[in-house]
């Protein structure tokens, strides 16, 4: 007998998306209203919220905004008295919009560049869930040229083509030990692209109550030739070849929204949005490696996501000619089933609270600010695949500001 077969069974690096990765920060005014506003032709962010409403915007405009986001997640292993927290890292969701059309015409062109999905979670290299994940940095940047057409004075339709540029960096520890006792480590880093569309219908009734129906398609983002770097003791190197690459597909889900806008007075409007986020596209995650990793060229992890949904109610009040005040509340249902919660997206149902204000010093210039807060409910879980067993609790804070020039 020459050999004792040694199989180092290491489960695949995981990759999980959740409501947690759906970033609901695409326009300062709407953020101030908890993310509602698809049925209000509020501003150039309608390129994202409802392309059908873009043509009803009175002015041409460009705007840019940013919402530094702090994702504060805590974990406690079942039975432990130690609470571990993610490191304070600020993710920068941003948005840029431009809308242009000849005055008093039936059409407008728009462009949106925004970050509808993303995640920045760094648990550190030595926390108790390190063999599931140490850090994730995920960015999806959507570029969306849009055409919006007024069919009647009260009905508009619009559609945009979406190109997604995605960046992913995912790291975790491997439960193999060096002679000094430290663990191995894997870093997956890749860039990908995907395509989709965004279309909306805007209807303003005779009572001035407005309705919106918007569908944002799924965007399957393909990552080709990402680098898979395994730091393992040299005696295991043949099982974890150096210079390896991977391909993977990342399905970003479709969202269908129904919106209602209700003018309460000349200066005050309510907005309500109900969204159905079609996460069922995320059934499994498969990585294909150029060179076999631990004897296998493919790893497949079950995800079995359900669809998620959210309900958001916002109010916009024009306090004076120059000052607008906003507030919103919302609730979102997680798509992540019991047994599939992970540290990448420690997801659960969540409350949303927001506030915002807008200031318009001149007819050309506008500044908007918002504060967005999410309370992700505490969730005690044992992950089916990894056995990570504990309670997650997450709070999200995102202040934001944008500048707009109109003409």
């Amino acid at each position, binding site marked *: 007998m020459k*050999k004792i077969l040694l199989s180092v069974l290491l489960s695949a690096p995981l990759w999980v998306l959740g409501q947690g990765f759906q970033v609901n920060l695409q326009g300062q005014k709407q953020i101030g209203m908890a993310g509602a506003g698809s049925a209000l032709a509020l501003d150039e962010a309608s390129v994202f919220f409802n392309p059908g409403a873009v043509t009803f915007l009175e002015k041409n405009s460009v705007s840019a905004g940013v919402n530094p986001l702090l994702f504060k997640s805590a974990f406690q*292993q079942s039975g432990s*008295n130690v609470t571990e927290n993610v490191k304070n890292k600020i993710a920068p969701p941003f948005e840029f919009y431009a809308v242009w059309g000849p005055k008093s015409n039936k059409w407008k062109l728009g462009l949106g560049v925004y970050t509808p999905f993303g995640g920045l979670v760094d648990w550190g290299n030595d926390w108790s869930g390190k063999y599931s994940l140490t850090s994730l940095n995920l960015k999806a940047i959507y570029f969306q040229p849009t055409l919006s057409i007024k069919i009647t004075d009260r009905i508009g339709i619009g559609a945009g083509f979406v190109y997604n540029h995605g960046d992913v960096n995912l790291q975790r520890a491997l*439960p193999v030990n060096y002679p000094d006792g430290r663990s191995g480590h894997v870093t997956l880093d890749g860039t990908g692209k995907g395509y989709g569309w965004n279309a909306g219908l805007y209807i303003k009734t005779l009572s001035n109550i407005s309705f919106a129906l918007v569908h944002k398609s799924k965007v399957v983002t393909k990552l080709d030739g990402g680098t898979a770097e395994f730091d393992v003791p040299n005696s295991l190197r043949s099982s974890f070849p150096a210079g390896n690459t991977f391909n993977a597909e990342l399905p970003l889900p479709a969202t269908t929204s129904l919106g209602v806008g209700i003018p309460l007075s000349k200066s005050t409007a309510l907005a309500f949005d109900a969204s159905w986020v079609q996460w069922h596209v995320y059934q499994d995650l498969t990585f294909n490696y150029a060179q076999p990793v631990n004897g296998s060229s493919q790893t497949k992890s079950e995800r079995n996501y359900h669809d998620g949904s959210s309900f958001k109610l916002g109010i916009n009040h024009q306090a004076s000619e120059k000052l607008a005040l906003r507030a919103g509340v919302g609730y979102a249902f997680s798509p992540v089933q019991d047994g599939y919660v992970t540290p990448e997206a420690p997801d659960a149902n969540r409350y949303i609270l927001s506030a915002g204000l807008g*200031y318009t010093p001149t007819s050309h210039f506008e500044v908007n*600010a918002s504060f967005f807060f999410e309370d992700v409910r505490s969730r005690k879980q044992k992950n089916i695949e*990894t056995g990570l067993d504990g309670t997650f609790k997450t709070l999200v*804070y995102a*202040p934001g500001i944008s500048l707009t020039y109109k003409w």
Partner: protein
Amino acid sequence: MVGEITMKKYILNSFVAAAILFTAACKPEIETPAGTTAGQANFSKYIAIGNSLTSGYADGGLYLEGQKVAYPNLIAAKMATVGGGNFTSPFFTDAQSNGSGYISLSALVNGTPTLTPVPGNGWRDAPTNTRLFKYSGEIQNLGIPGMRVDLAFAPAFSAANPFFERILTDAQVGATTYFQYVQTKNHTFFSLWLGNNDVLGYALNGAVTVPTDPTTTLTDKVNFSSLYANFLNALTAGGQKGVVATIPDVTSIPYFNTVKPSLLLAAAKAANPAAQALFIQTGTGAVRAATDEDLIRLPFQSAGLFGQGTIPYGLHPLNPIENKWVLDKDEVAKVKDYVNSYNSSIKSLATSKGLAIADTYAYFNQVKTGLNIQGVGINAAFISGGAFSLDGIHLTPRGNAVIANVFIDAINAKYGSTIPTVDITQYRGVKFPN
């Protein structure tokens, strides 16, 4: 303009307020009962009674790194939050840190491990290496490698066993039994994981009892039960509470499941396609072809016997693998029967005393199947499984952490205590050469 300035101030103030809220922000809180109460137990002086597993023996030896992560030490550290006191162990000094010596994994080429001895520096009679440096301090980790339920009542064993001799005074050596020794500690709480060697010693010798070596015998079932009862009576004499552990199925450890007959035969066929079967000598003296129901001891891999000789060793009925290397199918059944009998005694005696039971028998059966704990896959495979050290019998630090939690869960469930669990991800498996 005045209004505008006020407005700007207002916006600015709002942002300052938001920024303060943001930075102060309120870490998410998770409420926990862990670490708040000892329940009905008193952990102020915990003692751990047992064998090599309790002492932290690993990789074929007792050495400092293993001692420090012995499961009782991990449990005791967690008891500190619920009234646990100091916990002392007979640690080797830094100068003696290799203890009795152990084995390390020095190379792994195409899955073939090379195991290299690390010489012990804990022997006071080197190079004879029969006597370890004495330890005279207070001791609460009372695990003695090689200790058995039957030999715990034999005064001579305190002289014969170097690990026990090490912690005794000269007057006690050869005179004091382990059973007497463990009653001298004024404990308030105890763990008892003893009995493995009453069957393992027999199994590790290929189910061959050496008449002159009492560590190779099987302890009689009835005798086991009555001696175990003596232990529980003595340890609870002052009304103390404690936890006992069942004995794992010794046939499920890597020591008996790595060098499989089918793998040996496949290797032989690769070298010589004429090889037809693997032949073993059973406990009855019969010679027959082996199946994977017959277990071959791990050291056979490096014994340099297989296929040797004009009549190739192990591949011909006239030169079978000797009985001592093999736990044949019938011997496996016998060993399992003894384990089951001991365990039913342990459970019924502990139940009658109202003690917590850590069912390590059931737990190791799960380990054999394989399980994922906190992102770490653990199974009973040699080297790669992560739970068993390089001797294929004893636990890695990770294995000790996992077992510590089995004890903690049992204690908490029985006494309503909330000893926090051990974070197993802080403890290593086998060290792989770099």
